[in-house]
């Protein structure tokens, strides 16, 4: 991965070095999953669930997204999904819903920089 892409990803919220360490330096595998992250259905399903105020659906998708962001070293998104999940599990649905705009903003930023090649 060239320096430019690595820096761009870092600025958008992907800690590339940390992620590469987890992927044992396997760049191809990291890129594969970064792309998969962009096309993963969980994000759109989370938005739908939030519109319907479907708590179970939100827990399921937010949990999956949290896992992915953890593995792909996206600290901001990881933190947001962690907070959202905690809120959902303790019945604070409004708090969880209030996090949605911030989540969307961070998500779009990351996806945009991943897709740029």
């Amino acid at each position, binding site marked *: 991965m060239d320096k430019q892409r690595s820096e761009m990803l870092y600025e958008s919220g992907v800690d590339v070095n940390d992620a590469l360490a*987890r992927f*044992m330096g396997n760049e191809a595998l990291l890129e594969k999953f970064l792309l*998969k992250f962009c096309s993963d259905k969980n994000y759109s399903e989370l938005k739908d669930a939030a519109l319907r105020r479907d708590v179970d659906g939100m827990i399921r998708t937010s949990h999956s997204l*949290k*896992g992915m962001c953890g*593995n792909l070293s996206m600290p901001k998104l990881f933190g947001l999904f962690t907070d959202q999940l905690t809120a959902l599990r303790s019945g604070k649905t409004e708090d969880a819903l209030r996090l949605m705009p911030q989540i969307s903003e961070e998500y779009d930023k990351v996806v945009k920089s991943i897709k740029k090649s």
Partner: protein
Amino acid sequence: MDRLMSDEAMDRILIIDDDEINRELLDNIFSAYYLIDKAENGKIGIDRIEADPDRYSAVLLDAMMPVMDGLEVLRRMEKDGLRNVIPVFLITAEASTDVTREAYELGVMDVILKPVVPYLVLKRVNSIVELFRARKRLRSRVRMQESELIKRARRIAELNRGMITALAAAIEFRNGESGEHVSRIHDITEIILRNTKLGDGLTEEEIMNISLASIMHDVGKIAIPDYILSKPGRLTSEEYDIMKTHTTKGAQLLETIHELRGSEVYSYACDIARHHHERWDGRGYPDGLKGDEISIWAQIVSLADVYDALSCKRVYKDAFPREKVISMIRNGECGTFNPQLLQCFFSVEDKLSRMYEN
């Protein structure tokens, strides 16, 4: 790593996780050291484990999964008796929850936090797999050594019996009998102890030792002159007195065998040699012991000796038919015996009589 050499030498681990990134991440971490199988949920995972538990050296198990979660997999493994057979590592995003506690209670070796840190998870899993491998090696070595020891002990016991029988048979030859008499005394003693309440409270080893000791009941006859031992007619009272000393001389002889003194058989052998001619009514020899003063094994050998003598041809008599033997013993024509002993003896006499069928 030297383990990369061949497929056979490589251990295999099973990754059970519904999340593809996790599966691939773990695969990427472990594939240099292990063969990898993957399952997308607990159900598929447990099916693979149950199909061939020996296949896996470790299981990496995600806690939260659809269809069947990690805890359910652990419960199934527990039920299958696979706990502590295959080391399981729980992979979870939350360390201190009820799930982790229950997982530990169900026997997981370690909990690994997500997102995983490669060198850490690798180190932990390798250590435990190595531990299990060493434990397994040790267990199989101990099992091998145990069976080797048992084989050797059995061989020594056989050798002992062989030598003791040879000694007793050599003495038997002098009064024109084959070695079969001592073998039968051994078997009669063993059958009575094993099949009647007279053997209650005796261990398997004690029964074997008593039966072995019974073989030596007449060793004292080596000290009796040939003309008395082989005399076809009735003994004079002087001759009979000499004949009677085979009991005390037998015990003395056994005392001189240093190797025997250290063995479990010794006290039985001396007791039986000295007291197998005592009588329940106190009119036997050499000590005139009465009733329960005579050990039960000396009593058993005493009766076995009489039974065998009556059932076979001897220098001084022919073999008696079975009915006659039974009635002679029952009517006290060959000495008085403990009534309880007689009752036990008759309860197995059918089995004993088969020794004389040929």
